[in-house]
Protein backbone atom coordinates (compact mmCIF):
# COMPACT_ATOMS: atom_id res chain seq x y z
CA UNK A 1 0.00 0.00 0.00
CA UNK A 2 1.22 3.49 -0.59
CA UNK A 3 2.64 5.87 1.97
CA UNK A 4 -0.60 7.71 2.59
CA UNK A 5 -2.37 4.54 3.60
CA UNK A 6 0.55 3.50 5.80
CA UNK A 7 0.56 6.78 7.68
CA UNK A 8 -3.18 6.61 8.13
CA UNK A 9 -2.77 3.26 9.86
CA UNK A 10 0.23 4.48 11.88
CA UNK A 11 -1.70 7.10 13.85
CA UNK A 12 -0.93 6.99 17.56
CA UNK A 13 2.33 5.07 17.22
CA UNK A 14 5.33 5.96 19.31
CA UNK A 15 8.25 8.07 18.13
CA UNK A 16 9.39 7.87 14.52
CA UNK A 17 6.99 5.03 13.77
CA UNK A 18 4.23 7.51 13.06
CA UNK A 19 6.29 9.92 10.99
CA UNK A 20 9.03 8.16 9.03
CA UNK A 21 7.91 5.80 6.29
CA UNK A 22 10.62 3.17 6.65
CA UNK A 23 9.90 2.62 10.31
CA UNK A 24 6.16 3.15 9.99
CA UNK A 25 5.88 0.53 7.29
CA UNK A 26 7.49 -2.13 9.53
CA UNK A 27 5.40 -1.18 12.53
CA UNK A 28 2.19 -1.12 10.52
CA UNK A 29 2.91 -4.56 9.11
CA UNK A 30 3.46 -5.83 12.65
CA UNK A 31 0.31 -4.13 13.86
CA UNK A 32 -1.76 -5.77 11.16
CA UNK A 33 -0.26 -9.17 12.03
CA UNK A 34 -1.09 -8.62 15.69
CA UNK A 35 -4.63 -7.58 14.88
CA UNK A 36 -5.10 -10.73 12.76
CA UNK A 37 -3.87 -12.91 15.60
CA UNK A 38 -5.80 -11.02 18.24
CA UNK A 39 -9.14 -11.25 16.43
CA UNK A 40 -8.79 -14.96 17.18
CA UNK A 41 -7.31 -14.46 20.68
CA UNK A 42 -10.11 -12.09 21.66
CA UNK A 43 -12.64 -14.91 21.55
CA UNK A 44 -10.47 -16.96 23.92
CA UNK A 45 -9.81 -14.06 26.26
CA UNK A 46 -13.47 -13.10 26.51
CA UNK A 47 -14.48 -16.66 27.36
CA UNK A 48 -11.85 -16.84 30.06
CA UNK A 49 -13.06 -13.51 31.48
CA UNK A 50 -16.66 -14.80 31.57
CA UNK A 51 -15.48 -17.92 33.39
CA UNK A 52 -13.59 -15.85 35.97
CA UNK A 53 -16.65 -13.70 36.58
CA UNK A 54 -18.97 -16.70 36.90
CA UNK A 55 -16.50 -18.32 39.31
CA UNK A 56 -16.49 -15.24 41.53
CA UNK A 57 -20.27 -15.01 41.38
CA UNK A 58 -20.87 -18.64 42.34
CA UNK A 59 -18.27 -18.68 45.13
CA UNK A 60 -20.28 -15.99 46.87
CA UNK A 61 -22.97 -18.66 47.17
CA UNK A 62 -20.54 -21.37 48.23
CA UNK A 63 -20.28 -23.27 44.96
CA UNK A 64 -17.28 -23.29 42.65
CA UNK A 65 -17.33 -22.90 38.88
CA UNK A 66 -16.67 -26.55 38.06
CA UNK A 67 -19.46 -27.96 40.20
CA UNK A 68 -21.80 -25.21 39.02
CA UNK A 69 -21.31 -25.96 35.32
CA UNK A 70 -21.59 -29.70 35.95
CA UNK A 71 -24.92 -29.15 37.67
CA UNK A 72 -26.17 -27.00 34.78
CA UNK A 73 -25.12 -29.62 32.26
CA UNK A 74 -26.96 -32.27 34.25
CA UNK A 75 -30.12 -30.16 34.20
CA UNK A 76 -29.67 -29.48 30.47
CA UNK A 77 -29.53 -25.69 30.94
CA UNK A 78 -27.77 -24.48 27.84
CA UNK A 79 -27.08 -20.86 28.83
CA UNK A 80 -23.66 -19.88 27.58
CA UNK A 81 -20.92 -18.37 29.71
CA UNK A 82 -21.40 -14.88 28.30
CA UNK A 83 -25.00 -14.74 29.45
CA UNK A 84 -24.20 -16.41 32.77
CA UNK A 85 -21.54 -13.82 33.55
CA UNK A 86 -23.93 -10.97 32.72
CA UNK A 87 -26.58 -12.56 34.93
CA UNK A 88 -24.12 -12.91 37.80
CA UNK A 89 -23.34 -9.19 37.59
CA UNK A 90 -26.72 -7.63 36.85
CA UNK A 91 -29.40 -10.12 37.92
CA UNK A 92 -28.24 -11.47 41.29
CA UNK A 93 -31.53 -13.08 42.31
CA UNK A 94 -31.92 -14.97 39.03
CA UNK A 95 -28.31 -16.06 39.30
CA UNK A 96 -28.89 -17.35 42.82
CA UNK A 97 -31.82 -19.36 41.52
CA UNK A 98 -29.52 -20.89 38.89
CA UNK A 99 -26.93 -21.73 41.56
CA UNK A 100 -29.63 -23.44 43.64
CA UNK A 101 -30.80 -25.44 40.63
CA UNK A 102 -27.22 -26.51 39.98
CA UNK A 103 -26.66 -27.39 43.61
CA UNK A 104 -29.71 -29.66 43.77
CA UNK A 105 -28.62 -31.36 40.54
CA UNK A 106 -25.03 -31.81 41.68
CA UNK A 107 -24.30 -31.19 45.34
CA UNK A 108 -20.54 -31.66 45.05
CA UNK A 109 -18.04 -34.41 45.74
CA UNK A 110 -17.72 -34.23 49.51
CA UNK A 111 -19.74 -37.39 50.11
CA UNK A 112 -17.90 -39.56 47.60
CA UNK A 113 -15.94 -42.57 48.90
CA UNK A 114 -12.18 -41.93 49.05
CA UNK A 115 -10.17 -43.25 46.10
CA UNK A 116 -8.58 -46.67 46.70
CA UNK A 117 -5.11 -46.29 48.10
CA UNK A 118 -2.39 -47.32 45.67
CA UNK A 119 0.49 -49.38 47.02
CA UNK A 120 3.65 -47.36 46.83
CA UNK A 121 7.23 -48.34 47.39
CA UNK A 122 6.34 -49.09 51.02
CA UNK A 123 5.47 -52.67 50.02
CA UNK A 124 9.12 -53.27 49.16
CA UNK A 125 10.32 -52.09 52.55
Amino acid sequence: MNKKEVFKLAKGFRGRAKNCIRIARERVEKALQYSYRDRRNKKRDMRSLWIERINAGTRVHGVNYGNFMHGLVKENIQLNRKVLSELSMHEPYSFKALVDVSRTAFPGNKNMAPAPKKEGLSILV
Partner: protein
Amino acid sequence: DVWNKTWYPKAEDHVNTEKTWYVVDASDKILGRLASTIAIHIRGKNLATYTPSVDMGAFVIVVNAEKVAVSGKKRTQKLYRRHSGRPGGMTVETFDQLQQRIPERIIEHAVRGMLPKGRLGRDLFTHLKVYTGADHPHQAQKPIDLPIRDKRIQKQT
Protein backbone atom coordinates in the same frame (compact mmCIF):
# COMPACT_ATOMS: atom_id res chain seq x y z
CA ASP B 1 -27.87 -3.92 23.69
CA VAL B 2 -26.89 -5.03 27.17
CA TRP B 3 -27.14 -8.79 26.74
CA ASN B 4 -24.79 -9.20 23.79
CA LYS B 5 -21.95 -6.90 24.80
CA THR B 6 -19.76 -7.96 27.73
CA TRP B 7 -19.99 -5.38 30.48
CA TYR B 8 -17.02 -3.11 30.94
CA PRO B 9 -16.92 -0.77 33.96
CA LYS B 10 -17.45 2.91 33.41
CA ALA B 11 -15.64 5.55 35.44
CA GLU B 12 -18.37 5.77 38.05
CA ASP B 13 -18.20 2.01 38.70
CA HIS B 14 -14.78 2.17 40.27
CA VAL B 15 -14.57 5.42 42.20
CA ASN B 16 -12.03 5.11 45.00
CA THR B 17 -14.22 6.92 47.50
CA GLU B 18 -16.98 4.31 47.29
CA LYS B 19 -14.88 1.19 47.60
CA THR B 20 -15.15 -1.10 50.62
CA TRP B 21 -12.47 -0.98 53.25
CA TYR B 22 -11.54 -4.18 55.08
CA VAL B 23 -9.51 -4.58 58.24
CA VAL B 24 -7.73 -7.77 59.28
CA ASP B 25 -5.75 -8.61 62.39
CA ALA B 26 -2.56 -10.42 61.43
CA SER B 27 -1.64 -11.83 64.84
CA ASP B 28 -0.99 -15.58 64.67
CA LYS B 29 -2.08 -15.89 61.07
CA ILE B 30 0.05 -17.83 58.61
CA LEU B 31 1.83 -15.30 56.39
CA GLY B 32 1.23 -16.76 52.93
CA ARG B 33 -2.41 -17.72 53.44
CA LEU B 34 -3.16 -14.27 54.81
CA ALA B 35 -1.35 -12.56 51.94
CA SER B 36 -3.28 -14.67 49.45
CA THR B 37 -6.70 -13.65 50.78
CA ILE B 38 -5.60 -10.03 50.98
CA ALA B 39 -4.36 -10.06 47.38
CA ILE B 40 -7.62 -11.59 46.16
CA HIS B 41 -9.64 -8.85 47.81
CA ILE B 42 -7.37 -6.05 46.65
CA ARG B 43 -7.46 -7.26 43.06
CA GLY B 44 -11.22 -7.76 43.11
CA LYS B 45 -11.22 -11.41 42.07
CA ASN B 46 -13.93 -12.21 44.60
CA LEU B 47 -16.40 -9.89 42.82
CA ALA B 48 -18.57 -10.91 39.89
CA THR B 49 -17.71 -7.54 38.32
CA TYR B 50 -14.00 -8.45 38.13
CA THR B 51 -12.19 -6.82 35.22
CA PRO B 52 -8.45 -7.44 34.77
CA SER B 53 -7.69 -4.03 33.29
CA VAL B 54 -9.52 -1.95 35.89
CA ASP B 55 -9.06 -1.60 39.63
CA MET B 56 -12.34 -2.96 41.02
CA GLY B 57 -10.93 -4.23 44.31
CA ALA B 58 -11.21 -3.03 47.86
CA PHE B 59 -8.82 -1.43 50.33
CA VAL B 60 -7.33 -3.67 53.04
CA ILE B 61 -5.88 -2.53 56.36
CA VAL B 62 -3.62 -4.95 58.24
CA VAL B 63 -3.01 -4.37 61.95
CA ASN B 64 -0.69 -6.16 64.36
CA ALA B 65 1.67 -6.85 61.49
CA GLU B 66 4.57 -7.71 63.77
CA LYS B 67 2.68 -10.72 65.14
CA VAL B 68 2.26 -12.55 61.84
CA ALA B 69 3.24 -16.22 62.11
CA VAL B 70 5.09 -18.69 59.90
CA SER B 71 5.21 -22.45 60.28
CA GLY B 72 8.22 -24.67 60.62
CA LYS B 73 11.68 -23.18 60.96
CA LYS B 74 10.94 -20.27 58.64
CA ARG B 75 11.26 -17.77 61.44
CA THR B 76 15.05 -18.31 61.45
CA GLN B 77 15.53 -19.80 58.00
CA LYS B 78 13.38 -17.77 55.56
CA LEU B 79 15.62 -15.28 53.76
CA TYR B 80 14.68 -11.90 52.37
CA ARG B 81 17.09 -10.70 49.71
CA ARG B 82 17.53 -7.32 48.07
CA HIS B 83 20.11 -6.11 45.61
CA SER B 84 21.26 -2.54 45.23
CA GLY B 85 22.22 -2.98 41.58
CA ARG B 86 25.98 -2.68 42.17
CA PRO B 87 28.26 -5.74 42.18
CA GLY B 88 28.44 -7.36 45.58
CA GLY B 89 25.40 -5.38 46.64
CA MET B 90 23.16 -8.20 47.75
CA THR B 91 21.85 -7.99 51.31
CA VAL B 92 20.33 -11.06 52.90
CA GLU B 93 18.22 -10.94 56.04
CA THR B 94 16.34 -13.61 57.88
CA PHE B 95 12.66 -13.38 58.75
CA ASP B 96 13.21 -12.49 62.39
CA GLN B 97 15.90 -9.89 61.61
CA LEU B 98 13.50 -8.14 59.22
CA GLN B 99 10.74 -8.41 61.78
CA GLN B 100 12.95 -6.58 64.30
CA ARG B 101 13.82 -3.88 61.77
CA ILE B 102 10.71 -3.18 59.69
CA PRO B 103 7.82 -5.54 60.45
CA GLU B 104 5.44 -4.03 57.90
CA ARG B 105 7.76 -4.99 55.05
CA ILE B 106 7.14 -8.71 55.59
CA ILE B 107 3.45 -8.51 54.79
CA GLU B 108 4.02 -5.94 52.06
CA HIS B 109 6.63 -8.19 50.40
CA ALA B 110 4.29 -11.17 50.55
CA VAL B 111 1.28 -9.32 49.13
CA ARG B 112 3.30 -7.55 46.47
CA GLY B 113 4.49 -10.91 45.17
CA MET B 114 0.86 -12.01 44.79
CA LEU B 115 -0.43 -8.92 42.99
CA PRO B 116 0.08 -8.46 39.24
CA LYS B 117 3.34 -6.77 38.23
CA GLY B 118 2.77 -3.76 36.07
CA ARG B 119 1.29 -0.29 36.27
CA LEU B 120 -2.04 -1.54 37.57
CA GLY B 121 -0.33 -3.86 40.03
CA ARG B 122 1.68 -1.01 41.49
CA ASP B 123 -1.52 1.01 41.89
CA LEU B 124 -3.23 -1.92 43.57
CA PHE B 125 -0.36 -2.21 46.02
CA THR B 126 -1.09 1.30 47.27
CA HIS B 127 -4.47 0.01 48.44
CA LEU B 128 -2.78 -2.13 51.09
CA LYS B 129 -2.21 -0.37 54.40
CA VAL B 130 -0.08 -2.22 56.96
CA TYR B 131 0.40 -1.10 60.55
CA THR B 132 2.23 -2.53 63.55
CA GLY B 133 0.20 -2.34 66.70
CA ALA B 134 -3.55 -2.57 66.93
CA ASP B 135 -4.43 0.94 65.82
CA HIS B 136 -4.98 2.40 62.39
CA PRO B 137 -5.78 5.94 61.27
CA HIS B 138 -8.62 4.94 58.94
CA GLN B 139 -11.56 4.93 61.36
CA ALA B 140 -13.35 7.42 59.12
CA GLN B 141 -13.57 4.84 56.34
CA LYS B 142 -15.47 2.48 58.69
CA PRO B 143 -13.62 -0.70 57.69
CA ILE B 144 -15.38 -4.04 58.07
CA ASP B 145 -13.77 -7.36 58.97
CA LEU B 146 -12.12 -9.19 56.09
CA PRO B 147 -14.06 -12.44 55.47
CA ILE B 148 -11.50 -15.26 55.54
CA ARG B 149 -12.53 -18.62 54.12
CA ASP B 150 -9.24 -20.47 54.62
CA LYS B 151 -9.53 -22.87 57.53
CA ARG B 152 -5.78 -23.35 57.97
CA ILE B 153 -4.86 -19.69 58.28
CA GLN B 154 -4.79 -19.59 62.07
CA LYS B 155 -1.56 -20.82 63.58
CA GLN B 156 -2.11 -23.95 65.68
CA THR B 157 -0.51 -23.61 69.11
